[in-house]
């Protein structure tokens, strides 16, 4: 199947997503909820791109969950898509009690999109930490509900130890019946910490290192 990404022709397998086509063409499309090891989720909406369909209609779509169609023309620099993706990232910054630590994927997306602070302020997630597990820590206030940890636990490990909880702005993540990793079906594989883009779930040892070396990152991502 042939599609065009930012002016370059790309051949992709039938069923490929627009994000896969864009990456095959070498285009940099930022993402937050996407992890190629798991099925696309379509939650963060940071991977928005412009699509000019064969029918002539111009739309903005989430590239991770949109399948390619023959002859599709993709514009990863579409001004509307970029403007809205940046606004979404600003909204994410506005829900966190502090700027993301420099080493996190979220901080990298903030840099890539050239986001400089947030226009929005308001309620932020309350601090709630859980360090009962020997080496996995929750910092619930940093959770952006991307679902990567829950899906890693389901799709990579098959442990089903994690779940999304709550809804709307108060959505978050829990292990077992919110009793922490140790009292859940967790097998301590660390797939959740590995995929987390914000340190909401992280390894305790890394938390200590990050705290020691990234003190200056707390205020400027």
């Amino acid at each position: 199947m042939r599609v065009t990404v930012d002016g370059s022709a790309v051949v992709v397998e039938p069923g490929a997503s627009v994000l896969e086509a864009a990456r095959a063409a070498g285009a940099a499309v930022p993402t937050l909820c996407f992890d190629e090891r798991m099925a696309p989720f379509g939650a963060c909406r940071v991977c928005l791109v412009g699509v000019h369909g064969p029918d002539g209609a111009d739309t903005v779509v989430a590239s991770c969950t949109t399948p390619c169609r023959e002859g599709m023309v993709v514009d990863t620099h579409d001004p509307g898509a970029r403007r809205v993706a940046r606004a979404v990232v600003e909204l994410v910054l506005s829900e966190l009690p502090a700027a993301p630590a420099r080493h996190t994927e979220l901080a990298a997306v903030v840099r890539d999109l050239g986001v400089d602070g947030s226009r929005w302020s308001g309620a932020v997630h309350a601090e709630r930490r859980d360090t009962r597990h020997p080496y996995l820590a929750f910092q619930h206030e940093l959770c952006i509900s991307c679902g990567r940890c829950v899906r890693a636990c389901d799709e990579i490990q098959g442990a089903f130890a994690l779940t999304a909880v709550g809804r709307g702005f108060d959505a978050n993540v829990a292990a077992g019946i919110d009793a922490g990793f140790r009292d859940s079906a967790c097998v301590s594989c660390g797939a959740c910490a590995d995929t987390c883009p914000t340190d909401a779930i992280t390894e305790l040892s890394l938390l200590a290192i990050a705290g020691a070396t990234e003190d200056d990152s707390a205020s400027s991502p």
Partner: protein
Amino acid sequence: MPGNLVQLASRHGSPGSPTVVELLSAAVRERGVLTDDDIRAAAATTGLPEATVHGVATFYDDLRAPRGRRHVRVCTGTACFAATGGAHEHELQAGLGVAPGERAADGSVSLAETVCLGFCHSAPAVRDGDVIDAGPGVVERVLADCAQDAGEPAARSLLPEPALTAAGDWSALPAVLARLDPEQFLEQVADAGLCGRGGAWFPAAQKWRFARAAPAQQRYIVANGDEGDPGSYIDKHLMERSPALVLEGMALAGYAVGAGEGVVLVRSEYPGSRPALEAAIEAARAAGLLGEDILGSGFSFDVRVVDGAGSYVVGEETALLACVHGLRGTVSARPPFPAERGLYGLPTVVHNIETLANVPVIAARGAAAYRDLSPLSRYGGSKLVCFNERFVRPGVVEVPFGVTVRELCEGVAGGLVDGRAIKAVQIGGPLGGILPASLLGTPFDGAPLAAAGCMVGHGSILAFDDRTDMRAVARHLLAFGADESCGTCFPCRIGLRRAHEEFASPRAVDRTRLEALLETLEVASLCAHGSGMPAPIRSLLEHFPGELGLA
């Protein structure tokens, strides 16, 4: 949808066995609050992981609020807001001495907010145990512990020969089974131009073709009885007063797409709907109209009912199917569409209740007669609309498309009570635009309403009278939007909270920032909840900017 969890739910749950949502609802009804043991028991019964069941317990309204021996639910829907400005909520809270979402220390009484009870014709409404009382004096009666069931106005029709307000009689199914093969009947529905009445207006026959073409041993028809739009009580009317019409529509749809089973998801805010549907299912089975080999045709089809537990977004089709699976009622990205991979991962046609009620009308009258039901419109068929308590003659009314909103508001519904003037009407639910009084001449039809920033939606017509504070309307709608966001996509999860905060704070609203937020919601949201909530706010910005406290 989370594929692995759907597989688990499909493997362990035999059809008709209670879902996790139903098991947890029963536990909370019995004991007032969910314990970890309840969650473990539901996990063991259903084969779903404990974490998953815990996630369900934190999602639905019914499972989150603790219940006292007496559980009072106050309707905070838009019709109740238009009637009292919210005063009934404060009076009830003060009188009962408990805040919404809380239970008295001695366990005697609890109060919860609910949206909406579907008594918009007699607002405000309160549910005290299993009694739904509504209208003037309701708060006093509930506080005196003498709530009484509120009545409901009879439905009317403006059509020469009522279609959707006539009770179903199962006369269409035998004729179709005898005379048409499934493809022929599907083509008749396509020719009639039936489009989805839930608000999205998708051509029904197209869904049927997709599902029919998807290779599978089993297919499903799912009826969306999660009529969550505050201000709407159309599907409630159909499920409770004309359940046979809905069931016959499901059976006909099943015949066309090759489905053998139907499921109706009924919202828990309508306690009367499930018993009415189940009585009609039993009657149809007894008459040989549901079950194996219907009327000797070789076509088998049966229907069961599944309960919701309080979530607006469950009205979205992927969230609806998640709820039928007993999972968190969150939205999933499409594709795959339910017609390809839906209930238990199999091809599924999801239709709004009213859409299904149209199917026997098409079968009985034919495609051409159906299209002619609305002579002034390009749309075929008729529409049920419903009016709120501000009108002199509220109730469900069957109307042709194309008459003006003014004729509906002033002629059919008799204008407003106490001679008050209409300030604006919101049409089609919380995601519908708001039409100011100056535009009441707009025809009630797709294109003209769209040109005015509005939509037919599901068909509720909700008047705000001349005393209404439109900034308070924005605050009310956005509080609803933020509360009901399922939390999956970031724009809706965070953006509706920020939009509500703009209007809830005493500060002036920064218009530039608000418009950036509305654009983000419209362009980037995963489903119609996030992308639709800006519509009424845009109407208010256009028609009532002076009342919004803009900077």
